[in-house]
């Protein structure tokens, strides 16, 4: 059961745009398409952007919160980042990897949100009774969801 609940979430979508454009829109213009009205710490008036090696959400009044840190950034190919919206950096982050593969006239975009296994592995090391990583994940999304 644990392996079922902790396996990575995988999503695939085909986009009618070349990998360069798809990658650029995903990263440089995340603020244009991210559904902030549903998923943000500060609400619909907030902004979000890749700033250097961090993904940062800002409120209109200037508060900021870091959603994750960029681990790999291969233009038109792949971006990988830690993911801990609503939580402090380094606080047992999960990880998201997005790959962009040329597919005819378009791009096949694959998103994998993983790292739950690692969380429960760490937990198992110290505590043998209960190894389900989901409560932690939920807390994170509780903070993110409006």
């Amino acid at each position, binding site marked *: 059961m644990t392996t079922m609940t902790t396996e990575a979430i995988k999503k695939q979508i085909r986009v009618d745009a070349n990998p360069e*454009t798809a990658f650029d829109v995903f990263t440089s213009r995340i603020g244009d398409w991210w559904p902030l009205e549903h998923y943000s710490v500060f609400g619909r008036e907030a902004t979000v952007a890749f700033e250097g090696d961090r993904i940062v959400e800002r409120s209109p009044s200037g508060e900021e919160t870091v959603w994750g840190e960029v681990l790999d950034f291969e233009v038109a190919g792949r971006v990988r980042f830690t993911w801990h919206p609503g939580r402090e950096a380094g606080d047992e982050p999960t990880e998201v990897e997005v790959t962009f593969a040329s597919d005819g006239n378009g791009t096949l975009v694959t998103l994998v949100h993983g790292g739950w296994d690692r969380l429960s592995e760490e937990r198992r090391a110290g505590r043998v009774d209960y190894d389900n990583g989901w*409560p932690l*994940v939920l807390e994170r999304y509780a903070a993110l969801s409006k």
Partner: protein
Amino acid sequence: MAYAQALQALGDPTRRSVLEHLRDGPRAVGEIAAQLPVSRPAVSQHLRVLKEAGLVTERQDGTRRLYRVDPDGLAGLREYLDGFWEEALASFKAAAEAEERRKK
């Protein structure tokens, strides 16, 4: 929409602490209260909300009532996360395709 209630239940930091104490296994109210700066009745109240949200179950163990994390409730939240990325990617697709059309 069980996840909506679950997320709401988790919006309270004390309630998150209560749930956190159940990660290691089933606990009685008193055991949880002993480790938190919260009264026993307050812990009971938080457990009730978590139970109504489907995140916690209770069972009688002799004279003790034990609470534990409900894996089914957590499965619902996994579905929620799945939908979360789906919505984000659909929005991304629309933006990327609009940009591609603009460039042509």
